[in-house]
């Protein structure tokens, strides 16, 4: 299995790099840190290394392939890169700067993706957190049943929602969009609104379900104490619940971000396909061609679209490292 060696190296290097950051993040000298150190054994380290390597191999193969010419991709395995050397940036050049007139400018698609994902995530997150709080902390008999009903909505395949939702949008939303375009001409008639709403609608059941679990875990006495102090529900929600549920919110935000970012189906239906609205996935799907044999382009495209989700993951990472109740127990 010498072919795994290249995959090993970066991990070791990363461990070294990560050490400084980790030390800075960890509060030195706490009991927790000492306990944990004794918990992580050699076996655990080896096991997690094995899992990490196994999980990396397929993606690593893709990365290597994305720098190889099409001819080599088709005829030799990526692990034979040293026997069959061939390095090209052409796949990335094609994906990033191809000026096919049917879909010219990558830049505007990228801006669209960012705009769609930003609000698509935020709307879902805010409304889901509010609903989850209500389900968790305001007690009525029928509310439980409503919660179960919302939970069950997760199973509705979104393909089944496309037509009815599109009809509703063209009846109610289209006139509003036209009106907005008349008032503010630089906002095109096809705007992001349908996509934002659609993503929020499809994302809410799962978001509520996940956040409810974390929000209902908050110790009841924390909430009760606030109530005794005369805090309103609005204050409790903003001052206590949101800060305490930050790790959960951050985790879900990342997932929702990625789902919206990688979505193609919703975009195809609701974007109208123009570069006013269409996200980058739509552009990549066009590039790849009708019958997807352009492996060399697919490989590069996959990495182009993964960059931003990874940036987001790294910037929200700090929220998971803090314990869920770090704020609560320290008063």
């Amino acid at each position, binding site marked *: 299995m010498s072919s795994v060696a290249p995959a090993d190296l970066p*991990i070791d290097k990363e461990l070294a790099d990560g050490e400084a950051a980790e030390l800075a993040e960890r509060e030195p000298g706490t009991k927790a840190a000492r306990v944990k150190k004794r918990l992580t054994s050699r076996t655990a380290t080896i096991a997690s290394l094995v899992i990490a390597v196994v999980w990396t191999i397929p993606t690593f193969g893709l990365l290597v392939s994305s720098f190889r010419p099409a001819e080599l991709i088709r005829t030799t395995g990526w692990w034979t890169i040293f026997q069959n050397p061939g390095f090209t940036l052409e796949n990335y050049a094609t994906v990033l700067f191809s000026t096919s007139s049917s879909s010219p400018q990558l830049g505007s698609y990228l801006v669209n993706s960012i705009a769609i994902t930003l609000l698509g995530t935020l709307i879902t997150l805010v409304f889901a957190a509010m609903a989850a709080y209500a389900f968790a902390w305001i007690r009525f008999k029928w509310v439980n049943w409503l919660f179960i009903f919302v939970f069950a909505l997760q199973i509705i395949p979104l393909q089944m929602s496309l*037509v009815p939702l599109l009809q509703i949008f063209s009846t109610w939303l289209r006139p509003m969009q036209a009106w907005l375009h008349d008032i503010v001409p630089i906002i095109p008639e096809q705007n992001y609104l349908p996509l934002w709403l659609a993503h929020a609608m499809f994302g809410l059941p799962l978001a509520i379900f996940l956040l409810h679990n974390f929000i209902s875990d908050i110790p009841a006495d924390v909430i009760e104490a606030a109530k005794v102090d005369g805090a309103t*529900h609005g204050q409790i929600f903003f001052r206590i619940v949101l800060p305490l549920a930050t790790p959960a919110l951050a*985790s879900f935000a990342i997932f929702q971000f990625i789902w919206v970012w990688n979505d193609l189906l919703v975009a195809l239906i609701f974007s109208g396909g123009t570069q006013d609205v269409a996200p980058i996935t739509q552009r990549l799907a066009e590039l790849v061609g009708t019958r997807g044999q352009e492996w060399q382009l697919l490989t590069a495209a996959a990495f182009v679209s*993964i960059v931003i989700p990874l940036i987001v993951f790294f910037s929200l990472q700090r929220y*998971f490292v803090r314990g869920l109740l770090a704020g609560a127990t320290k008063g």
Partner: protein
Amino acid sequence: MTTPDLLGKILQVVMGLVVLAAVVGLLIFFIDKAPKKGRDYWQLALFLLPAMLFVAIGLVYPAIRTSFLAFQNNAGEWSLDNFIWMFTQPAAIRTLINTVLWVALAPVISTVIGLAYAVFIDKSRGEKYYKVILFMPIAISFVGAGVIWGFVYDYNGVGDQIGLLNAIVVAFGGEPVQWLQTDPINTILLIVIMIWIQTGFAMVLLSAAIKGVPTEQIEAAELDGTNAWQRFMNVTVPGIRGSLVVVFTTISIATLKVFDIVRTMTAGNFNTSVVANEMYTQAFRASEIGRGSALALILFVFVLPIVIYNVNVLRKQREIR
């Protein structure tokens, strides 16, 4: 893209943010100003209002419509044709069995690996990087995942193998196998892709939950002289039970809905089809909306046990409080 275009886009985002903030602000304002009488009711209603409005329009109404369509033929007449078709075509039973197999394997394995990994790397050096490795598969779109696993399962009748799995088989002196065409191993191999994607999801959520287990409890257990495995089973697992159920449930539902993997890898040929893939094929490829809707209803039936289980968990939770 011209400068006005870009400005227009930025303006849309800013306006979107402003409107969202205004809506939330108004809601909170009214929540805090709710009348004294039936106060909790009002507050609850306002907290739930936006989310319920969204799901009613986007999901409930379409679901009802789908249920009606399932009992209509193409001419719009009431009939049971779609269900008759579903249970008489030879491949249907196999599709149902495959779906059961997916739900039986993918959620359990993803959750177990994700949990083990989360425990192993908890508070270790380079935790961040360990997490990214497992997280990567989620960030890659399904199209990308299809290509990646194409490079793993590829079969070449003559010449060099470009599929990793067959290259390993050949290196050990075996004959290359047509992985995706060989029933029943092909369904298992497709499930592996799902596990590869979903494990990161389980890991991220369970890792957050593990960090929520109070360290005092672990320390106490340690003073009692228990070993690591006992501490894990007696302290950590009960502490994250709620999260485990949630993760398991979410992955189960995602598995029931999976169609992209099957569609990109085998298109449902070679006895690999699952209900969600058939649904997509019938409704969109074959323009048989009624048949697609009937299959969607079958998915509802599949998810019922999961719902009932969660209802019980929820009941227990509420009693404890």
